């Protein structure tokens, strides 16, 4: 199996499904770190990614009511970025975070994701649950 001549070795999709319970979030964190380690991310950027995925999973657990409904995580890598999609099956409409809240207690998780990642999109579907798409560029 000769190594491809191009930057191909950076491209790939990894899917991870964990139980939506607190004790499994560490597995998501370490898997993301292993994936990120394949790209030229710095140690600090990898720490950012670990925190962002943990916050996304924590939200997904809460959205799922803490009863363990699986969380689906898709990671797509390219030479210069990592795109992570986190899906849960929480079908109760989430209350939006009041924009620009001063005291960062509620909404801290989402705030951190937005601060640490380069692009964040969240969508909610009452039939299927939430989808969070986050992207981090190398060297950002």
């Amino acid at each position, binding site marked *: 199996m000769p190594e491809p001549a191009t930057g191909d070795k950076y491209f790939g999709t990894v899917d991870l499904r964990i139980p939506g319970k607190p004790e499994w*979030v560490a597995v998501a964190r370490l898997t993301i770190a292993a994936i990120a380690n394949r790209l030229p991310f710095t140690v600090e950027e990898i720490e950012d990614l670990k925190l962002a995925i943990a916050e996304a999973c924590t939200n997904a657990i809460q959205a799922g009511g803490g009863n363990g409904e699986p969380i689906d995580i898709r990671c797509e890598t390219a030479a210069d970025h990592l795109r992570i999609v986190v899906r849960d099956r929480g079908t109760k409409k989430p209350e939006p975070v009041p924009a620009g809240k001063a005291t960062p207690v509620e909404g*801290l998780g989402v705030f951190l994701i937005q601060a*640490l990642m380069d692009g964040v999109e969240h969508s909610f579907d009452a039939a299927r649950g939430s989808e969070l798409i986050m992207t981090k560029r190398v060297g950002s």
Partner: protein
Amino acid sequence: MDIKVNVRESSDDAYVVELGGEIDVYTSPKVKDAITELIDQGHYNLVINLEKVRYIDSTGLGVLIGGLKRVREHGGSVNLVCTNPQIKKIFDITGLVKIFGIYDDEAGAQKALA
């Protein structure tokens, strides 16, 4: 996925909660329990030592904020010891650096409690 929680009385009637490992959605309840117990016993001057903490997320921050709120109701305070740059960064970007006293060592954090 390990957390170590070690509580000890320090010289000047303050308590030190020394934490080690990773504070996340799974482990933060253990941290919360330790802090709640101290407050329930009437100890309102706390140093929380994060020097051996490798990782903290919003649930961990929430526990610290919750503790701070409770001790303040009794005129107490919470000072943190933190040297890890990644964790300092999280206190910075969340603005929590303005709410907590953050120190480089336990001696500094304790002195500032008085």
